[in-house]
């Protein structure tokens, strides 16, 4: 188990990590999600022991390791860049951590071959990394991390430099590969989609602070504040300011109807209304859906879906609908909002005040 206790890291005058407390369990998969410069890499460096915190403490299995050098911790790290020993063969690259641990030749051989098999590298074992494709190079780095049997495996956007499809495949394989090792597994990414596909738990980062840490789907479904919801939304979350008066919701100059029963307790005042792009549609499929008029910006057709960018009372929204819909730029169209999918955030501090219910998941 890896534990952070009010850890902060200052470099010069800038605060890279701001009072982070975190508990990562053995055998768990943890995603660090946040945009560039939100502190993902800084946090990983602290976890690895490459940096020591300015204040706060770090524990591994209850033992304080604050300031202990990375070599004493059993850590494996894979970076966005493909980092291998260029002069060694793939075999030697994978074997290198085992050689350092002083394993016997026969045990090294079997472990290397097993890892190579899992990562589909068997036929490349005799080549040097520079003669491999990007995907194969990164798989070599992953295999090296795998054989090390580290207690903590840190992956810093490991798939960012790979092709889309390759990413898709490795994303499915990775959690499975490392789950068996029982390590604490940390995966940093900028992409919400990637976090969702990996599952496990997700910590969302914003300016060096962790805004939420929970099971991935819960963070997605019940973000504690607007910042988290926006970090965890791709395509971007649709937002607009709204007001509640006597349990009636009003936004974009339209009465959006009665608040749902589980939100009836909301006090009168200003809120930020948010909903995901796939919860707006161009056709009315349910009589509870509310119609509002919006102006079409552009539309993007992917073949199976259409993204329509619209402006409604000054707010820019994305409507994501199934099928192919052709709409003209500048036209006024009616879009249908689904009140049962509304999020309401406090207009002042952005805290979550109401989230849709997710009975389907609970069942």
């Amino acid at each position, binding site marked *: 188990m890896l534990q952070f206790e009010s850890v902060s890291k200052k470099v010069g005058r800038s605060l890279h990590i701001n009072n982070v407390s975190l508990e990562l369990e053995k055998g768990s998969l943890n995603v660090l999600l946040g945009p560039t410069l939100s502190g993902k*890499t800084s946090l990983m460096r602290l976890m690895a022991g490459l940096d*020591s915190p300015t*204040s706060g403490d770090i524990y591994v299995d209850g033992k304080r390791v604050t*300031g*202990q050098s990375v070599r004493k911790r059993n850590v494996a790290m894979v970076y966005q860049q493909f980092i291998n020993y260029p002069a060694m063969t793939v075999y030697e690259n994978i074997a290198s951590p085992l050689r350092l641990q002083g394993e016997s030749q026969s045990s090294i051989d079997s472990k290397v071959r097993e890892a190579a098999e899992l990562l589909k590298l068997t036929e490349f074992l005799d080549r040097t990394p520079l003669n491999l494709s990007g995907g194969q190079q990164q798989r070599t780095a992953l295999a090296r991390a795998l054989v090390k049997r580290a207690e903590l495996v840190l992956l810093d956007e490991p798939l960012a430099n790979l092709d889309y499809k390759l990413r898709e495949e490795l994303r499915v394989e990775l959690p499975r590969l490392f789950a068996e090792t029982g390590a604490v597994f940390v995966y940093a990414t900028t992409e919400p989609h990637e976090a969702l596909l990996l599952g496990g738990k997700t910590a969302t980062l914003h300016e060096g602070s962790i805004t939420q840490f929970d099971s991935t789907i819960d963070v997605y479904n019940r973000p504690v504040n607007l910042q988290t919801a926006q970090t965890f939304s791709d395509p971007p979350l649709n937002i607009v300011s709204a007001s509640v008066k006597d349990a009636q919701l009003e936004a974009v100059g339209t009465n959006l109807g009665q608040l749902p029963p589980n939100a009836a307790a909301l006090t009168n005042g200003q809120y930020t209304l948010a909903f995901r792009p796939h919860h707006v549609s161009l056709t009315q499929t349910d009589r509870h859906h509310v119609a509002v008029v919006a102006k079409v910006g552009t539309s993007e057709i992917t073949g199976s879906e259409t993204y329509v960018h619209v402006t409604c009372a000054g707010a820019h929204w994305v409507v994501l609908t199934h099928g192919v819909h052709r709409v003209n730029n500048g036209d006024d169209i009616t879009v249908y909002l689904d009140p049962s999918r509304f999020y309401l955030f406090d207009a002042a501090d952005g805290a979550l005040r109401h989230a849709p219910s997710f009975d389907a998941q609970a069942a």
Partner: protein
Amino acid sequence: MDKPLNNKAWFFVLPVFFLVAISAIIPLMTVVNYSVQDTFGNNQFFWAGTEWYSEVLSSSRFHDALLRNLMFSGIILAIEIPLGIAIALSMPRKGIWVPVCLILMALPLLIPWNVVGTIWQVFGRADIGLLGRVLSELGVEYNYATNSVDAWVTIIIMDVWHWTSLVVLLCYSGLVAIPEAYYQAARIDGASKWKVFRYIQLPKMQRVLLIAVLLRFMDSFMIYTEPFVLTGGGPGNSTTFLSIDLVKMAIGQFDLGPAAAMSIIYFLIILLLCWVFYTVMTNFGVDAPEKEVD
């Protein structure tokens, strides 16, 4: 707050501390010690205060030598930096000629100072040197031993020949690090060769150029071997630089007090000028290095 890591680390620095103390700090203190005392031999020392310093600072001998140094470094930088950039620009970036060029460039750097001095001393002699003979055959009056301009030209050529490669290699390393896309974008933008140099190559070479200027400045400011081998500081005092003067004073005349004061002043001047160069060049056209967190 207890931080176990930091205390241990100091322990490892101790040996280095010792070495620096023995090799730098203790000799420096000896020099400082000499510079504030007078002696009449027999190891008897008398307190002299700042006497030697004011003597050195007000002597025209020191002024002349300092002026020669500044002029020499100025000329060296003015020639070697542009020449180094020009050669680096004209070197191939890929292909089989790259290692050939690099080795040719590195060759002068491998030759010791005094050998360079001797080579040119012989090369330039009017009676037996190839250069000297050719020049006199061509009717050019050239004699570094009697003509101070000739002596200066010879020393400058010597230094340029010896050290321009360093600037070339540094600039070249800066140039090859520029991604191909920059050149392609510039072509598409219709930029001329000069503009490519001015807006892409020069900005990207800035860091290595700073290092080149600092190294060449410090080195040329401390020039000793070349004029010493060539003419021993002559003809007259025309190539007597601070370092040569210092040695004359300390070892030739055994004036330890003034010599010590002079070396302290010399040291401070170099330190000051390096600081000036560094500040000017890092602030010139550059914002603070971009911070990278992620």
